[in-house]
Every structure is written in C-alpha cells, then in structure tokens.
C-alpha cells in the first residue's frame, strides 16, 4: 500500500548524470536560440539581421559538425530521458541539414519587392493603418530567427526523447514557434493568420490527446520512460487495456504531427497560409521529427504490442495514402496540392513503419530524407513564381511556365517526378525500400494498395508538368523571379540530392542501415 508518508521520506539528492557530449547538438541549438532572443532584445535593428544569420548558420553548422563527431554513440542519458543512438543521430543530422536549407530560404530578401517574405510587424492588424505605416517605412523583422532556432531544437530533441514527458516538452518546443511562424506571411496575411490559428488550436488539441495518453500509460506502467513501459508490458501481458488506450491517444498526437488521415485536416490550410519558406522548412523537418518520435514510441515502448497497433496502423496508412492522393487531384492551388501530397507521402512512409523491421526502419528513414530534400526544393521553386500580388500559387498561373523558364520548369518537374517515385529519382529508391521492407514482413496487400495510391498520386504530379510544359503561356502566367544565392543554394541542393539519391543511393542506404536500431 502506497501511503503519503512514503513520499515524504528524505531521499538524498543525487546529481543526474548527463552525457553532455551526446546532447551537445541540442545544447548548441538551444543556446543559440537564447542568444538569438538576446540579439532581438538588445541590439539595434539595423545590425540584427547580420548577427542573427551568423548565429543561426553558425549554430546549425556547429550542431551538424558535432553530430558527425559523435556518430556511433549509443547512450541513454539524462536519467533515462534522452536516448542518443544511430537513428536519433541520423535524423538529427537530417533535420539540421534540412533546417539549413530552410534557413537559406527564410533569409532570402530579393524575391518580394518590399523586402522579405515576412510581415513587417507580426503584431500589426492586417489592413490596419499601422501595417501600412510599417510597410511604407520598409520595416523588416528578424524575430523569425529565435523562433526558428527553438523549433529546430525541439525537433532535434523530439527524435531522441526516451521519456514520454520529455517527448511532450519537445513536441511543444517544436510546435509553438511553428504556429507563430505560420502566421507571419507578408502577403495574404488573413490567410496566414487563419492558418496559424488553426494550426495552434488543432495542435493544442492533439497535444492534449498526447498528454492524456501519457497519463494513462503512466497509470499502467508507473513510468513514462519508453524502455520501462516495454518491460512492464512483458511483465504484465494480460492487463493491457489502460496501456492500449494510452497508446492510442499518444498515437493521435504523433499522427497529427505526421499529417496522417484522419488527423490531417490542418495540413492544407497551414501549408497554404504559411510563408512558403516556412512551409518548405516545416514540411521537410517536422515530418522527420514526428516520424522519428512515432517509430521510437512504437518500437521501443510498444514493440510488445505490435499485434495491437499493426491493424490500426494498416487502416491509417491505407486511408492516408488514398485520401491524400485522391483529394490532391482536385486541388487548384499548388501549395495545397503539395500539402495533400505530403499527406499521401506520410502514408507511404507509414508502410515502412508498419513493417516494424530493421529494413523498415532504414527504409522509412531513407524515405524521410529523400522526401525532405525534394519537398524543400519544390517549395523553393514555388517561392520564385510570382506575379504582382505576391506568390502565384494558383495552378492556372503556372500555364506554360516551363516554356518561359525552362530551367526552373525542369527543376520543378524533377521534384514532381521525385515525389511521384519515378526511377532515377530519390523518391523511387525510397518507395522501393519501404515496399521491400513491407513485403518481407508479409504486408503484401498494403504494398498493393500503396502501389495503387502511387498511381493516383502520379496523376497530379504529372498534371503539374502538363500545365507547365504542354500548355501555352497566357497573359496570367506568372514570372520567375531571380533569387539571390540563398534560395539558389537551397534549390540546387534539393535538386542535386533528389537526383543523386536516385542514381547513386548506396552511401545513404548504408548510412540508414548502419544506423542500427533504437536503443532500448
């Protein structure tokens, strides 16, 4: 019998053991976030941008370099709350690299004639006199950078959280800045703010599910640490109902973040409303972070309940692939189309997750990396296609774009083919890896559905090529703005990785399979 008295026993305080070397990338990013806040608070406006960029890129590169130096580290640290292992490091590296590309896009200042792509003052009401004043004075803000750094820190923590409570903290650290970033578009501010609000409300709602699930699982296992939950599951196999409900609620929270059906409703609005640079950054990195956490929870904590979650995940994967692909067909806005595409892609990655095998883990990670680069590149292209009202995201304005600007058109066609999974692009190898893993685990029907969904998805990707290349440019056709080196680098990196991972994927395939499994 547990009594209150037991809690009052004087336990000597012991210092938690923290492997600072293993979590240094996280600390670098969080520290840089703090510095970035101070820069906003203390430095004069004119000098902020340069210093912010220096802090952001410096931190990202330092974090990446540190991740490289600690490859091979497998350790559970911070009193069991953080696990640094092969998959965690790989995904942290991928997140940081993609964040670098995202930062490049966000730093771009030569696309919009009035400065950058962010609202001059996010606090000014859309259409108000203040806003006009700020815009007229040419105000440019740099507050996005601390938000960006905290979001990246949250993601880096999310993939290595070994404790459900810490995972929740990471989820919030990652999400809250993203909600704000989504609402900061300079053009179409109402749409952007609506997106932010929707994202925030639904995100908060799903977080509540998550934390409620954590509470229930704690009630079952008396611990929030993933390996402990796993061992309790083996110890008490008969009475899992509380754990089951808890797991389901936790999965709701995580599947919301990966944009799986039926938790996908936020995706199109947010992708469309957020500034395109933020959308690209978010689409690529959140997917990795959320899938990283999802796989860790499923494999480490609930690996013993595989037969309970596999049927549910089957249904979700099938729904996600089909709903994403089918609804994407009817979209006329290219950002919304890519949002539904990202939903469909989440379904394909779930196919690899469901395989629940080393090959499945490796395949999913490869897919995530491939998808990240292709997506960020695609959004980089979208940020270049503009007319006088800002970005021209309506598909009708893309008519004949490929004829007018063959280079940009071809690169975008490459991204579309990559997302469609045409051979010699990274998307094909990704699909191949997850399908092979799923078939080896006996999920033949899932693969057949996935193949069908790929065909549906191919239709809308190919349609963009039709619009760009097979239609005559009209008076409404948008023009391609020449970007500065920032976006050019991001774009080139996306295109290069999409091609190289399609033609010579061996090094990265080795990387993902050598990453090994999650530490328990």
């Amino acid at each position: 019998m547990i009594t209150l008295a037991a809690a009052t026993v004087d336990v000597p305080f012991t210092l938690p053991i923290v492997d600072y070397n293993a979590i240094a990338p996280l600390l670098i990013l969080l520290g840089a976030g703090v510095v970035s806040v101070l820069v906003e608070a203390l430095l004069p406006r004119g000098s902020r941008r340069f210093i912010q960029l220096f802090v952001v890129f410096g931190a990202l590169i330092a974090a990446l370099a540190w991740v490289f130096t600690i490859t091979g580290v497998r350790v559970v640290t911070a009193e069991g709350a953080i696990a640094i292992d092969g998959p965690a490091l790989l995904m942290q590296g991928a997140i940081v690299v993609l964040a670098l590309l995202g930062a490049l896009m966000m730093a771009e200042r030569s696309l919009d004639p009035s400065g950058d792509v962010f609202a001059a003052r996010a606090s000014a009401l859309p259409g108000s006199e203040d806003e006009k004043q700020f815009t007229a004075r040419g105000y440019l803000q740099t507050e996005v950078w601390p938000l960006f750094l905290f979001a990246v820190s949250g993601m880096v923590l999310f993939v290595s959280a070994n404790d459900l409570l810490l995972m929740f903290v990471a989820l919030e650290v990652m999400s809250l800045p993203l909600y704000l970033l989504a609402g900061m578009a300079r053009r179409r501010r109402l749409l952007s703010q609506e997106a932010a609000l929707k994202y925030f409300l639904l995100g908060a709602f799903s977080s509540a599910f998550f934390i409620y699930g954590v509470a229930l699982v704690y009630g079952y296992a008396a611990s929030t640490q993933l390996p402990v939950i796993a061992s309790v599951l083996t110890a008490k196999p008969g009475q899992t109902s509380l754990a089951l409900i808890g797991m389901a609620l936790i999965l709701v929270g995580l599947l919301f973040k990966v944009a799986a059906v039926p938790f996908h409703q936020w995706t199109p609005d947010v992708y469309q409303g957020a500034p395109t640079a933020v959308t690209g950054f978010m689409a690529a990195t959140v997917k990795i972070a959320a899938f990283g956490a999802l796989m860790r929870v499923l494999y480490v904590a609930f690996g013993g309940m595989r037969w309970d979650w596999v049927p549910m995940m089957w249904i979700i994967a099938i729904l996600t692939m089909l709903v994403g692909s089918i609804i994407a067909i009817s979209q006329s806005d290219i950002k919304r189309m890519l949002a539904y595409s990202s939903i469909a892609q989440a379904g394909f990655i779930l196919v690899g997750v469901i395989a629940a095998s080393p090959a499945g883990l490796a395949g999913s990670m490869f897919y995530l990396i491939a998808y990240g680069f292709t997506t960020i590149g695609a959004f980089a292209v979208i940020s270049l296609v503009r007319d006088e009202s800002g970005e021209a995201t309506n598909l009708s304005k893309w008519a004949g774009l490929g004829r007018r600007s063959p280079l940009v058109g071809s690169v975008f066609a490459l991204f579309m083919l990559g997302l469609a999974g045409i051979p010699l692009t990274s998307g094909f190898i990704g699909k191949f890896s997850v399908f092979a893993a799923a078939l080896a685990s006996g999920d033949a029907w899932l693969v057949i559905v996935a193949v069908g969904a790929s065909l549906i998805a191919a239709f809308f990707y190919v349609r963009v090529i039709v619009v760009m290349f097979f239609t005559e440019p009209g008076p409404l056709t948008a023009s391609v703005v020449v970007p500065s080196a920032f976006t050019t680098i991001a774009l080139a990196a996306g295109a290069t990785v999409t091609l190289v991972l399609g033609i010579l994927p061996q090094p990265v395939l080795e990387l993902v399979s050598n990453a090994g499994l999650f530490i328990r």
Partner: protein
Amino acid sequence: MTPWLTILALVPLMGSVLVALLPKSRPTLAKQLALAISLVTLALTVVMALQFNGASSEPFQFVESYPWIPAFGISYSVGVDGIGLVLIALAAILVPIVVIAGWRDVDATSDGSVKGYFALILALESLMIWVFAATDVFMFYVFFEVMLLPVYFMIGRYGGPQRSYAAVKFLLYSLLGGLFMLASMVGLYVVSAQVTGQGTFDYLSLIGLEMDPTTERILFLGFFLAFAIKAPLWPFHTWLPDAASASKPGTAVLLIGVLDKVGTFGMIRYCLPIFPAASEFYAPVVIGMALVGIFYGAYVALNQNDMKRLFAYSSMSHFGFIALGIFVFTTIGQSGSVVYMIAHGLSTAALFLTAGFLMQRANGSSLISDFGGVNKAAPVLAGFFMFAALSSLALPGLVSFVGEFMVLLGTFQRYLFVGGIATLGIVITAAYVLRLYQKSMTGPLVPKLFGMKDLGGREVIALMPIVVLTLVLGLFPAPILNVVNPAVDRVMKTIGATDPSPTISSEGSGK
C-alpha cells in the same frame, strides 16, 4: 574487353545533352548533330553486331557488370543474347531514319524548341539500348520506366491537338503497369532473399528460383500486366490509338516500332524464364487475349477513317501474333515472334513515315476520306505506301511474311485449332490494308490535293533503308535467325518446354 553496350548507350545520351545545350538559334545544327550522333551509334552497333558470336555457349555476350546498389543486390549489368541484339539493332537503324524523316516535322509547329525534339529522340535511343541490354531486373525496370519520360514529352510537347490528353493517358497507363511490375519485382527480390539468403536482382540468378506456385503466379501477373500494357495486348490497348494519333510520325515510329517491343521482349526475356510454371498456367489466357487482339484490332482497323489510328489498331493485331508465338512454347513460334518484332518495327516505320509525308501534303489531315488518287499526283509516294501496306499484310518475300509464317507454323505445331483461327486474321489484315490503299491512293485525285508534290530526295533517303531491309531479310532471313535461334533455344530449355514432334498418323485419319 571493350564495354560495347555501355558505349553504345552513352553515345546517344551524351549526344542528347550536347544537342540540348546548343543555342536555340541554330535549329539546323541541332538536327545535323543529332543525325551525326545517331549514325555514329548505328555504325557502332554494326561493328558490335559483327563481333557477336552466334555459336557461343554463353547466355549473354558483351557482358559488363559492376555493383550499383549493393544494399539491395542491384548491379549495373548489361549483356545481349540474339534477341536483345536484333532489337538494339532495330532501334539503332530506326533512329537515324526518324531523324531524317522528321527533319521538318518540328519546324512547322510553333511549339517547343527544335533541338528539344531531337535531344529527346537521342535520349530515348540511349534508354532503349539500355533496356534491351540490361541483365539485372532492377536495372531493366529503371530504364523501362524512365523510357516513358522522353516519349511523354515527345507526345505532350510536339504532338497534335489531343497531345496533352494522349501524353497523360500514355504515361498513366504505362505507370499502372510499371507500378504493378514494381510490386512484383520487389516480391521477387524478397523471395530470392528468402530462398538464397541474399536478395538479388541478377537475371541469371533469378532463373530457376524455387517459388511457391501461388507466389509465382502472382508475381508473374505483375510482370505480365506491365508487358501487356506496353505491347499492348487486348484489353490494355486503349492508350495506343490516342498516343499514336496525337504523335508526330517519328514519335509514333519509335513508340510503336521499338518501344512497344519492350513489352513482347519482356515476356520472352523475363516472364517465361523466371516464371516458367506460371507462364504455362496462364498460357491459355494469354493465347486467348492474343487471339481476341488479332481479330479485334483488325476489325477496328477495318472501320477506321484515321490513318494513324488505323495503324495503331493494326499494330495491336500484330502484337497479338507476336504474343501468340511466344506463348505457344515452340522454338519456331518464338523465333518467329522475334522476327515479327523486327518486321513489325520496319513496316510500322514505313507506314507511319509515308503517312506522315502524305499528311504534310494535306495540311496535316490524317483522315482517309481526305485523300484519293494520290498515285496520279505522287507516284513515288504511292509506291512507297503500297510497299508499306504490303509489308504490313505480310506479303511473301518480305520479312513480315517470315515472322508471321513462323508464328503460325509454331502455333499449328502446338494447337491446330488456334493456328487455324489465327490464320483467318491474315484475311482481315489484307482487307483493311488494301482498302486503305485503294481509298487513299487510287481513283480520281481529290481537288484538295491538286498540285501536291511527290517525295523529295530526303524523304526517299529516309524510306529506302527500310525497303531494302524488308526485302533483303524477307528473302534471306538467315542473319536474323542465326542469332535469334540459339537465344530462343536457351529460353525453351530454361522453361523446360520441348517442341511437339511432328506426328504422322499411321491410320491416315487426317488428325
């Protein structure tokens, strides 16, 4: 050892990049460069073919193999047997012809750049060579799919009024087959990993893989579906008439003449040897599809008023013959199918190119009803048209006759009844081909065509090689048969099929 096949594929690929990099203001230079590169490729093919040893006991010659994606047991492996060799030769011969014949095709249209079209042709040639040379199933699949892209752009950017619809339909239909083949191919890989402990895509290692009969049948279906759509067999043919009628003549030649052969090539190279039991199991279904295709295609062709669509349906009928020859499991039938593939490539080229020349003289109309009496105004053109028509209906003395005759002979050996039905298809073929000729070429010259010019030098040069080859190989098919027969023998041996020995009934019952 010279890496012949890699060089052969790289030359047009490099050429394609070069042509694409030329300035837009130099269209003629782009054409000249494309022609030169395609001729170099042809010359290289000839040199390589001369070194091919028909009597070799090796399954493949000019073999190269390098690890590509070892994580999945994938290698870059090329090599050819007789079948691959003649199909590569077909591609290498048709590309320069298409370049010459299509010299002015793209100028006339305002859309798209000239250099783009010729760069795409060269890229396609390179991919075709790789697809026929691949001896790694994964590599085959990659090129099988990527090959769609140049054609997609050739139809979609340079085609007729329905081009966008036709291009998308072509691509989606092909992707449908391709994706099911992908699922099967992954399945094959998983099976090979379970059986041998190490998953592989190497063609020769996959032959004779022990498989559960149900698994084998399912995997067969994935591959077969892709090939049946590609070839196309009835009922997977609906994309072909649309694609053919929306294409430039040159595109159609490469699409139907060479590309679609990948489907029938795939059946004989992959379906049969890798899934012998399933092939036998499904043979009656395939033969049924082939027979329906022979008659359905011919029947629809009989009622077509659009020449390009007519050729498409006629091709579908011919593909029925080719598939029939493959799935009756006789040496002579399969050899006949390979010869038929070559013959059909040549006759399709002749038909589409002459029709293309004809259409250029009638403001692009391809309706038979718009023509009449062409042989009065343009006797040379009409003569070539006649030759192409006769080649299509398999006149004895032409190479198509050799193919068709061998297929029927092989079919009779195995199934007397099927052979009898298939032979009737020839009659309808003769009917629609001659009707086409009669309506468009004979009679009084229609007023619209007054003053039409006969073929010029360039056009005759484009057509002459086809005529010569059709005749020479028709009268003397030994060069093809000598290289094809050993390959077919190997396929027959792999699948454990034997030719039925000719039986002469002692009672004279006539059975």
